[in-house]
């Protein structure tokens, strides 16, 4: 089944909203979150997308510690997502931001 125009518009509005939510106070987070939004987010299922939105609600310093491997989220779903975001940066094209 193909998405309706309304559904497509809803998805693109959500992507734009998330893109702005990925603007953070730290360069490291800008790079990691935007890379994942561009390369990994589309492949997530609904639950995974909800987890990403949930992750963006955390404070910059906490997200930074998780993504830089200095702390581990207690929540298993977030733990998995953090691994995916790190992998997207590591495995992405060299030099791209």
């Amino acid at each position, binding site marked *: 089944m193909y998405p309706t125009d309304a559904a497509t518009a809803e998805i693109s*509005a959500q992507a*734009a*909203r998330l*893109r*702005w939510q990925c*603007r*953070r*106070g*730290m*360069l*490291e*987070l*800008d*790079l*990691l979150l*935007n890379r994942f939004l561009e390369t990994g987010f589309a492949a997530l299922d609904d639950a995974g997308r909800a987890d990403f939105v949930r992750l963006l609600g955390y*404070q*910059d*310093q906490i997200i930074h510690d998780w*993504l*830089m*491997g*200095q702390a581990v989220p207690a929540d298993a779903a977030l733990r998995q997502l953090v691994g995916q975001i*790190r992998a997207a*940066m*590591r*495995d992405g094209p060299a*030099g791209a*931001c």
Partner: protein
Amino acid sequence: MPIPHRKFDALIIGAGGAGLNAALRLASADLRVAVVSKVFPTRSHTVAAQGGVNAALANVLPDDWHWHMFDTVKGSDYLGDQDAIEYMCREAIPTVYELEHAGVPFSRIDDGRIYQRAFGGQSQNFGGDQAARTCAAADRTGHAILHTLYQQNVRARTHFFDEYFAIDLIRDEEGAILGALVLEIETGETLIIEAKATLLATGGHGQVFRTTTNAFINTGDGMAMALRAGVPLMDMEFYQFHPTGVAGKGMLITEGARGEGGYLINGDGERFMERYAPRALDLASRDVVARSMVTEIREGRGAGPDKDHVMLRLDHLGADVVHRRLPGITDICRVFLGIDPAEQPIPVFPTAHYAMGGIPTDRYARVVAPARHGPEEIVPGLYAAGECACVSVHGANRLGGNSLLDILVFGRAAGTDILDYVAENPNHRPMREADIEPALTRLGRWDRTGEGESVAAVKADLRKLMEDHCGVFRDDATMAEGVEKLKALRERVEHVRLKDQSRTFNTARIEALELDNLVDVGMATLMSAYHRQESRGAHSRVDYPERDDEQWMKHSLYARDGDSMDYKPVRTKPLTVESFPPKARVY
């Protein structure tokens, strides 16, 4: 449909440490305060400041605000205004205690007093032994300060306009600032916020350079708004670069890496610092290392397929040393490069970090500009504080621990002066349709449709141009070429079109407005650097390697109108103590 208006006593644009400290002072005095921030306030760049705040508390070693003042004047390479520096160093002490009482969890010594660590450039007794002056909340001082100030503002009922983008200041015929036109990012709707006083606290503009430690939000919005309102920018040529950022990305690889024995190699594997600084080698001063790196690249000895960076080697130190002593660098390399720095060299390039220049203000954070009666006439109703402002307390070079201090002291000073200003000017000045027109024109320009270049392409070219022509390698020919290229690029911006003309969460439109701002602050930076024919602090010229106090101990002022340069004297007279006359800056 008419644009809705909201009225407040004070409007603050930017929600980092400076904006929030000003807002807290005002809201606590029961003024109606609006804070406009393009991102959620606790996502401001202050959150990234790890170092700490300087204040002569003398908790760990003997200290005195006067010694702090000496260090700051010397660090500024004698371009800092000594009245403002005295004020900042004296106010540092009550400012830190105020933050402590507001709830900032500073690290402590055993007897419960605030712990203070030693940073470079700090001395006892006017250039004597090392001082310990920096108060920190572990390695997350900025985060702690920002969250504390935000929570206190919520308690004090500051009105936050989160995810609103400021388009431009609104100015009346007499040049007084009446507020700003802002855009709600979620809906694309505009709003006019009328205010008796407006504070610009929008932070820096590191995004104008390709390689920067600054977050994506640091696009010089407030500086560009000031320029468009007819206010010049001051000392924009003074920009701090760190020699070792991750190439192509910008994150800082601390000097500790070279302190532990790391060294730089070019694309041929040669340890090139042996040629530039045979004794100090890789531990030579920042500007020498950075310029040597870029010289290698310019002369075709860079590393990588495009020969556009050099490499930092740590692999000879052994995994134990690298992982144990440099854990932050290890994490950055693993996450962003997929390498272990104990096994592979790190691609590095000088990274843009901090702007000493900005919107000219006095020590009350009032914006001042040349006008009929002199170089420092107050712009009625306009204030600026933090990295977007130039008081000037950093002069040509900022000391570690003085940037958080700057935002806190002058954010607070702005709040204090706005209280008086609003008391003396209790009514909003009338706003005419014609006053709003320029801001609407700026926004409306991005409604033009048709074929054209993309924002991203022009922005990438701008950042590369600034890095190549106004980075750490500066001489007449390089910068003259840069000025011509930037003028051509500014013309290209006129032909950029947005494909997405939707209203809701149109981040492409915001990025276009940011591009306008980056081009304006880029031109201010490049023109100021091109015209200053000396080396002072962070502004280092190959063709004028010496400081020239006779010709150049003065502040630069760049005006957008005609890309013109003007100058004004440094304020060498402190408030209560003797001046520190210029001396060679030797450490």
